[in-house]
């Protein structure tokens, strides 16, 4: 009996993930191989250009955001830059924004009627800048976490051997960071090539794969070419994913002693300037959108108004925001519970079947390497006809299910990581005292996992409320979400209303985060 329940629960989770992954990927394959002649058709100059554009922008954004991210992370962890604690909080801001938000911000700031500059933004430049601001906090975060694990005794040892600060930087800090840097590069690369929001708003006549797949599938209803193009997107994502897993495997745990920073006026001034400039640009791009959402008619009538928040020019009104909240809370609640359950079963139960464990772990890593566009297209082709995904509730449920699968990997990794930091003997201690496992989980393991659970919840909430790439294939009038509605409004020329909708997303994600921080302190 004791073995049956955990194994059944794990099998249930496996079934759920399989329903999300197997039919959608399978259907993409079937569509592709049914009509191989289309493959020749899809080798048009336009599509090849889209592919090259995608890779070029991906590499450019990830190189630059890794460098800038390093500067910010270094300023925060390893210098006496002014206002480091503010930097630490502020650089994260774009994480709570959908990718269209930096795009709108750029239009306001440096578009053809821009506040600061007038640039020809639509095209490669806009996609690059928008992608950069969207990717930068992710890169910074990776490197920050990595820098924090530097063993400062190494620096002391080097100082004792007479190494000056340049030599310490080159021989200790950079070699220590190379994993973090590479990780930042790969993550921002995947993020950029799979992003839909920025190229949709700023791409102009500069085609990239994410928008091209959407145009083929939704615009021309040519699912075969869309499926084929999504393979083009899948391949670089898979390659990047392969390298990330290799990095993870060789990552070593070092003592997490905090940097002992010696003041160095020259270095500190330079990094104060650089980091504040970089983070300032991030913040400005987001803040201007919030400001713009209150402006009557940008840039000609600058009187402030709440009119944009009535969404009277959109057929959906405020309802997309409600749908987004339903989607985000649904994904966050279900995802937190399921990922924690799965991590617990695979990590702290000795009596689950090792085969099920392996299958589950394989399935949890799969979603990370599937771009949202590909997963969305797969869902649209394979699962949208199911009856339970129809109607007002069903269509939201459909988005919840898709987004849950899409985001499952990180939730699972965070849950596993949280549990692995908890002494594995607590349940054994409880059992030796005659107390069953559930009681100890309830009284000890769960309270100790609180901040990890909050982390998962916030990640799922913020990601679900900002996601665009998958849901554009799946929404119905009953379930159109805020980010998609914002794109619609901007396409129809109501940029301030789009800004207002984006601001609602941003504020909701931020509010949940701040609330969670309060609760989990």
């Amino acid at each position, binding site marked *: 009996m004791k073995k049956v329940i955990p194994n059944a629960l794990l099998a249930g989770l496996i079934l759920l993930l399989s329903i999300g992954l197997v039919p959608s990927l399978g259907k993409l394959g079937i569509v592709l191989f049914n009509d191989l002649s289309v493959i020749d058709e899809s080798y048009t100059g336009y599509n090849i250009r889209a592919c090259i554009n995608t890779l070029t922008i991906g590499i450019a954004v990830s190189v630059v955001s890794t460098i800038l991210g390093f500067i910010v992370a270094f300023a925060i962890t390893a210098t006496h830059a002014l206002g480091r604690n503010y930097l630490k909080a502020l650089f994260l801001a774009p994480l709570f924004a959908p990718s269209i938000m930096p795009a709108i911000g750029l239009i306001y700031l440096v578009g053809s009627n821009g506040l600061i500059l007038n640039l020809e933004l639509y095209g490669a430049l806009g996609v690059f800048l928008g992608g950069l601001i969207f990717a930068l906090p992710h890169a910074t975060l990776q490197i920050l976490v990595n820098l924090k694990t530097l063993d400062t005794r190494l620096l002391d040892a080097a100082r004792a051997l007479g190494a000056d600060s340049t030599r310490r930087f080159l021989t200790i800090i950079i070699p220590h960071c190379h994993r973090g840097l590479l990780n930042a590069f790969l993550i921002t690369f995947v993020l950029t090539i799979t992003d839909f929001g920025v190229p949709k708003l700023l791409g102009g006549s500069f085609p990239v794969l994410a928008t091209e797949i959407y145009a083929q599938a939704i615009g021309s209803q040519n699912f075969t070419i869309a499926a084929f193009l999504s393979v083009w997107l899948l391949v670089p994502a898979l390659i990047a994913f392969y390298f990330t897993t290799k990095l993870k495997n060789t990552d070593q745990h070092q003592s997490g002693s905090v940097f002992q920073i010696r003041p160095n006026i020259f270095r500190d001034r330079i990094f104060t300037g650089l980091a504040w400039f970089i983070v300032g640009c991030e913040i400005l791009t987001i803040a201007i959108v919030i400001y713009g959402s209150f402006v009557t008619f940008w840039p000609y009538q600058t009187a402030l108004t709440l009119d944009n928040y009535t969404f009277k020019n959109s057929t959906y009104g405020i309802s997309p925001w409600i749908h987004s909240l339903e989607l985000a809370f649904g994904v966050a609640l279900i995802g937190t519970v399921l990922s924690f359950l799965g991590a617990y079963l695979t990590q702290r139960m000795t009596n689950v079947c090792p085969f099920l464990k392996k299958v589950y772990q394989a399935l949890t890593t799969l979603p990370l390497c599937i771009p949202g566009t590909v997963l969305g297209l797969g869902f649209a082709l394979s699962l949208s006809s199911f009856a339970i995904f129809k109607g007002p509730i069903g269509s939201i449920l459909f988005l919840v299910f898709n987004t849950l699968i899409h985001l499952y990997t990180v939730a699972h990794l965070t849950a596993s990581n949280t549990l692995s930091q908890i002494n594995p*003997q607590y349940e*054994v*201690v409880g*059992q*030796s*005292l*005659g107390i069953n496992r559930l009681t100890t989980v309830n*009284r000890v393991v769960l309270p*100790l996992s609180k901040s990890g659970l909050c982390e998962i919840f916030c990640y799922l909430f913020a990601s679900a409320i900002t996601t665009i790439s998958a849901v554009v294939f799946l929404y119905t009038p009953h379930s159109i979400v805020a980010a998609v509605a914002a794109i619609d409004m901007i396409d129809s020329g109501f940029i301030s209303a789009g800004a207002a909708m984006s601001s609602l997303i941003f504020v909701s994600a931020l509010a949940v985060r701040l609330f969670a921080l309060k609760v989990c302190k």
Partner: protein
Amino acid sequence: MNSTLVLKNLSKRYGDFEALKPANVVIPHGSFTSILGPSGSGKTTLLMMLAGIELPTNGEIWFGEKNLSHVELEKRNVGIVFQNYALFPNLTVRDNILYGLVKKQLSKNELDQRLGEMLELTHLSGLENRFPHELSGGQQQRVAIARALAPKPDYLLLDEPLSALDAWTRYEIGQELREIQQKSAVTTIMVTHDRTEALSLSDFILVVNHGHIEQAGTPSEVYDNPKTEFVATFVGGMNIVQNAGINQGAMTGIRYGDVFVKHATEGALSEPYTFVGQLQHIEFMGDTVRAFFLLNDFKTQVIADIPRLQPVASDLKVKNLYAVQMQSSTWRQWSH
């Protein structure tokens, strides 16, 4: 109830690896028993089977009339103190100690009474509202012991309880452990790789090597009558001597502390079993001086621990010759 803990043919295999060879031991009731062995010897495997965390491949564990061999951890009624204590960091000392009593449906008075007993036993009174991270290492360990003893276990298991401590606190906390054990009179089994710890704290010692219990006995039995060469050398410094002048040339063990060293006078050298030895090297050990000699057969190496107050101790010079005496009463032998 006078119940001994009995292992009958107890063994454990992991695939091809024999972690514990069939073991037959009777552990006296109420005793403090140490399982002593080097790392990888199988001592932790044995402890895990006594705990019920690992189940035996073969054989049985009996506690009095109860066959525990396949009783699960929850039902076994055994107290465990882990190496890192595994205190619940989110619960106070009080809640940690009473954790195992929740199910027993005791009244608040009974709980308070048991808590009081445990706090007094482990000298923790006044700390019951602290959290584990607000306690010293020794206090944390005593909480772990109190938590394990509170539900009145049949026996108590300690997994290397002193190994994380520095030398000085180790001695003190070892004495405390012993005192708590004596007062509570619970059969206690401790795993350790430290022979001094095992010899000074225990009533009974199991010496384990390569998954085999080489000897089970009181500390003095194990020290004075080792049954194997491994036991002889592992429980204390032991010369292995093969010299025609000693024990008719048979291989013989002589403890470092049992070797007498004197100035090489004619009188000293005329005593039985006394040899001329050249001092090769000395090490200052604190209470004693450890001296390394090469005997005049130019083959036999003998190590002697000389108490500092012996006259010869202050007059040891490398290369000088001394009288090295190994009396027949100190010869130890074991089967091969």
